[in-house]
């Protein structure tokens, strides 16, 4: 008979061989009454006669693994049981010294072979990797959704690529600049990475943002480059980590700040600081962690927001470059990824707040005559905006020419030609009817043909702006 069990859960099987004596036997071998052959691990076997354990080397000899000899002659009806655990070798146990440090893992690197896998860098993820010796490796994942900063890689610049003295305005999409004091002169501009020089291998950033202050000015108490994250509920009461790459013209210290703005009609704003960060002249990734205050008991008004403010030096001539801004839950700066993970996703995310519609060349915009000297077109937004947006347009005059100047437009009807007339910027209104669509009206026309669609053509600097910023 063979009984299998797992004493102490160690995976050792116990085999029992049971024999009914016919009388006179001093040697045992062969099959038992249940058809199992006698087999035991030498030195680990136990031999019982009628339940009494015999003494190895005195009452019997068991040296072959398949026979037991030297027994006192058995009596008919004696029941002999030979019990033996399966062979095991403690030399196969994995020694503790295999691991060297906190977080190390023991992994297989082949049949019956293990090795130490040193713990990965903070935020990395263990993935199967057939080309790695251990079959697994730590890797940086570019996952979308963790980063609450939109346009953290400064890939979207709908408003332009250079902003002179950008006080109180948005610059790169979602990035607002504001400062006080007097006499300072600065430019925020889009800068292009030389191919292969972006600070993250495997993530070839295209652009970074530069704040170049050429005249220090005086009296500055704040100098902010911040992003308002929609809804003050964002990360409220949570530990968050701000990370970004930055470099400067010389050693500079920045202390990013945050603001919980409860919006119009809401509680008073709450402000705080991250840790001070020491920039050098080389790209370097910085991370700093804070726990945001709870919003329990607060009143949330209209347009509440969490402001993440990178800041730039006060009252100083300086150049600061930023790239790869990320804000995420937790105390570890995980590998950078944009909020959406894709260029088109980032553009759409930006256009929830701001959309610049080019009216240059053949715009695809068609106007119809409403009467009352008014031509009108409905313009649909590519993304539903946060709220019904404010609107402006850069159209200064009308021409009958097909070659308008930068801010001129013309209207052309198929088979009819360009609409004649004179008209100036004061005869334009633009507005939005909802977060989905807007309209543009041009006034002052004298009896255009009704029922026709007039194609709007514009100069290279013609555009319509729609803003639903916070």
């Amino acid at each position, binding site marked *: 008979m063979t009984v299998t069990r797992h004493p102490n859960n160690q995976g050792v099987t116990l085999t029992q061989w049971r024999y009914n004596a016919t009388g006179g036997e001093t040697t045992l071998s062969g099959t038992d009454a249940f058809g199992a052959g006698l087999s035991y691990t030498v030195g680990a076997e136990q031999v019982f006669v009628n339940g009494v354990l015999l003494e190895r080397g005195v009452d019997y000899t068991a040296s072959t693994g398949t026979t037991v000899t030297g027994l006192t002659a058995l009596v008919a009806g004696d029941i002999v049981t030979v019990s033996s655990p399966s062979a095991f070798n403690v030399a196969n146990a994995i020694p503790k010294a295999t691991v060297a440090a906190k977080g190390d893992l023991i992994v297989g690197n082949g049949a019956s072979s293990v090795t130490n896998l040193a713990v990965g860098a903070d935020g990395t993820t263990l993935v199967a990797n057939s080309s790695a010796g251990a079959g697994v490796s730590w890797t940086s994942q570019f996952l979308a959704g963790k980063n609450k900063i939109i346009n953290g890689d400064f890939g979207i610049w709908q408003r332009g690529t250079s902003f002179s003295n950008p*006080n*109180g305005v948005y610059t790169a999409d979602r990035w*607002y*600049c*504001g*400062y*006080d004091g007097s006499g300072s002169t600065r430019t925020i501009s889009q800068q292009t990475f030389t191919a292969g020089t972006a600070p993250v291998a495997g993530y070839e950033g295209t652009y970074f943002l530069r704040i170049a202050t050429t005249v220090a000015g005086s009296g500055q*108490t*704040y*100098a*902010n480059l*911040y992003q308002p994250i929609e809804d003050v509920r964002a990360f409220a009461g949570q530990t968050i980590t701000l990370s970004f790459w930055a470099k400067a013209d010389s050693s*500079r*210290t*920045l*202390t990013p*700040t945050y*603001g919980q703005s409860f919006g*119009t009609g809401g509680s008073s704003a709450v*402000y705080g*600081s991250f840790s*001070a960060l020491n920039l050098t002249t080389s790209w370097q990734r910085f991370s700093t962690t804070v726990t945001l205050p709870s919003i329990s008991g607060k009143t949330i008004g*209209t*347009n509440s927001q969490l*402001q993440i*403010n990178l*800041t730039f*030096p*006060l009252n*100083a001539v300086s150049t600061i470059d930023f790239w790869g801004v990320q804000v995420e839950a937790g105390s570890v700066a995980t590998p950078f990824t944009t909020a959406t993970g894709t260029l088109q996703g980032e553009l759409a995310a930006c256009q929830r707040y701001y959309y610049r519609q080019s009216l240059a060349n053949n715009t695809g915009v068609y106007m119809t005559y*409403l009467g*009352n000297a*008014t031509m*009108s077109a409905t313009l649909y937004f590519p993304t539903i905006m*946060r*709220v*019904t*947006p*404010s*609107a*402006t347009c850069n159209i200064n005059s009308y021409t009958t020419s097909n070659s308008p100047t930068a801010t001129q437009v013309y209207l052309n009807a198929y088979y009819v030609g360009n609409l004649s007339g004179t008209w100036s910027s004061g005869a334009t*209104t*633009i*507005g*939005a*009817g909802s977060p989905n669509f807007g309209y543009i*009206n041009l006034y002052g026309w004298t009896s255009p043909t009704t029922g026709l669609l007039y194609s709007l053509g514009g100069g290279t600097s013609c555009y319509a702006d729609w*803003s*639903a*910023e*916070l």
Partner: protein
Amino acid sequence: MIYEIVTNVFGEKVVQRTDADGTIWFIPTDPANADYQAYLNKDTLPSNSSIPQAGE
């Protein structure tokens, strides 16, 4: 900034804001629009840019 209330071609009241650089914005009277809120509270709200700075 100069604010005016104007009526658009659809007969709706909108806020017309003229910025220092001459840009004219047409702002819907939507309470959720931040520019409209800025107009409504132009005499009481601080500048949106004045997040206190911890200093260098």
